[in-house]
């Protein structure tokens, strides 16, 4: 779950990390009020879950409360990369002496968290040359310690005894504390700013591990998903929207990807990725089929190789949907069904006049044919 910048900064502040003065508002009048409290040049930043806000005109620099009001009027109601701006963050404009980069994320290959830091922040870290990037893995059994933070500071070329150096030693340690305590798979500060003697997090990007949300009850909820993604997620499934006209449901991430690859290789275009694997029951599978119908595809291809998923559960779900819709499907359905309890599953499908395919490639070809009919 991605958090808005202002939420990330609120989280930082709770952990004692320095953030700019200011707060989130939802209307221009409030923006003027916050600007007056700050009493000087401000920044008005659109709050959307997307980068490139500056380029889209979503960040303004008003000097007075009146200008802040006007800036908020302009930014609120904008759409940035398809996302409506519903709130803005109004904060003090920092005097920037130097910009750094700092993040902690998960390195799956190393099976550890990794700190990435650079004395050259502000821009995309991917655009930095290798020699400007510091990568340091965090041993989960050892945890975070001051020596680790001091080494990061040293490698950034910042004197350890300077006020900035001392401050960064603290920040590095707190970032890891946030990751572990809040199950954050990404905590990023870009830029981390030197402003006279202060070191301030001028931006925040925090992503909480979706799998850990069950134990993160004190965090604000952010709906960072499309309606279909949300509906699937509520059923415990994962959905990704694509541009084509064949809706796809398969059981397992790999086979779902493999199904999309096969459709594409044969000249079809998948409308989505929907993984209904992991032992999804009859009712959830039926609801998932309704999500697919909602996409208005030209055909639906269900590709099941039962393991923990049972073919009879899937077949019953298909039959339930068929009956609920007056003994018909809204669009042509192609079903490939083998694996656990396949005989029972196929018998159920037969009762509603559906013949299941044995092979994925045959099913894929048929679905493409129907999508072009």
């Amino acid at each position, binding site marked *: 779950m991605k958090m808005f910048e202002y939420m990330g900064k609120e989280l930082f502040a709770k952990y004692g990390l320095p953030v700019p003065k200011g707060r989130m508002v939802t209307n221009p009048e409030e923006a003027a009020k916050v600007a007056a409290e700050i009493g000087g040049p401000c920044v008005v930043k659109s709050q959307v879950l997307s980068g490139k806000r500056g380029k889209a005109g979503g960040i303004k620099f008003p000097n007075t409360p009146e200008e802040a009001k006007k800036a908020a009027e302009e930014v609120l109601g904008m759409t940035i990369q398809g996302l409506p701006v519903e709130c803005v963050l109004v904060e003090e404009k920092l005097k920037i002496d130097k910009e750094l980069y700092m993040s902690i994320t*998960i390195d*799956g*290959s190393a*099976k*550890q*968290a990794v700190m990435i830091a650079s004395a050259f922040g502000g821009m995309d870290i*991917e655009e930095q040359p290798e020699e400007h990037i510091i990568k340091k893995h965090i*041993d*989960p*059994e050892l945890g975070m310690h001051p020596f680790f933070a001091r080494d990061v500071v040293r490698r950034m070329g910042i004197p350890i005894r300077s006020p900035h150096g001392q401050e960064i030693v603290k920040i590095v340690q707190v970032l890891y504390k946030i*990751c*572990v305590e809040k*199950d954050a*798979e990404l905590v990023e500060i870009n830029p981390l700013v030197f402003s006279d003697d202060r070191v301030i997090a001028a931006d925040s990007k925090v992503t909480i*591990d979706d*799998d*850990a949300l*069950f*134990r993160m009850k004190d965090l604000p909820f952010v709906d960072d998903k499309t309606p279909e993604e949300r509906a699937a997620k509520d059923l415990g499934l*994962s959905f*990704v929207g*694509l541009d084509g006209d064949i809706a796809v449901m*398969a*059981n*397992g*991430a*790999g*086979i*779902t*990807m*493999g199904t*999309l*690859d*096969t*459709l*594409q*290789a044969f000249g079809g275009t*998948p409308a989505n*990725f929907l*993984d209904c*694997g*992991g*032992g999804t029951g009859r009712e959830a599978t039926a609801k998932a089929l309704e999500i697919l119908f909602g996409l208005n595809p030209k055909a639906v291809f269900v590709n099941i*190789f*039962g*393991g*923990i*998923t049972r073919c009879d559960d899937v077949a019953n779900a298909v039959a339930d949907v068929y009956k609920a819709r007056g003994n018909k499907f809204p669009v042509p359905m192609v079903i490939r069904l*083998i*694996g*656990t309890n396949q005989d029972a599953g196929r018998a159920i499908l037969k009762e509603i006049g559906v013949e299941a395919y044995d*092979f*994925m*490639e045959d099913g894929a070809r048929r679905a493409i044919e129907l999508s072009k009919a």
Partner: protein
Amino acid sequence: MAIIIDENTNVLVMGITGRQASFHTKQMLAYGTKIVAGCTPGKGGVEVEGVPVYNSVREACENHRIDASVIFVPAPGTKDAAFENLEAGVPVVVIVTEGVPVYDEIQIVAYAKRKGAIVLGPNTFGIVSGGKCKIGIPPNQYFVEGNVGVVARSGTLTYEITGNLTANGLGQSTVVGMGGDRAVGLTFIDVLKMFEKDPQTKAVVLIGEIGGNNEEIAAEYIKEMTKPVVAFIAGKSAPPGKRMGHAGAIIERGKGTYKGKVEALTAAGAKVAPLPFDVPALVKEALGMK
């Protein structure tokens, strides 16, 4: 031979009294797996499919030799269950559970390393040594004994490809599911090294997917292998920046692309199958069969 598990492996099922676990206990027994104990805290003393259930792993270990455990407990309790098995000295722990928080996974993997244990998963279908032992959830009928080693990140895709191998007369030495999550116990290289040493294995099928750089790292080792490797990589059609079901299956910042993986594997001498059902022909070719 085969790797990691064989016909002598004694298995404990963690959470055996649950719906999925009891169903799959029955399936594993039908495959011939030696399930000697189950464990569900608070349910000790009962039997599931004739298997005695204990309150703790330690208690099970006092009554049986446990060579491997399979964990079916829900995600919030998975770390505890994994630690309990590792602490008791179980050398192979298979974690089927999906949706385990990544920081829990990191801790499990680190502790397993300290104990010298093998962890498969989280989010794995398990492991099958063809005709000898199945631990996990794959459908029985597609896994038969033979000389092809299979290593994969994804479950159902593995059934698909293994089913195709079996249909083409190609049995398997061992089929290893490493798990679809970001922080799992083994890497492709760990498993490739075991297959390289295993006399039963004559060729290896590597089933990868977009995201991460596990396949690229594996390619470095494939260069040194004497046994042929055939690969399939899922996600050619996946858009960047979207998580394709598995937590690890995402192209981020231009890394983990289909193209990059295929190029690395091809350069290392592996044959990459364009589609899942192209795998058997390439394996036959690699084994000099017609």
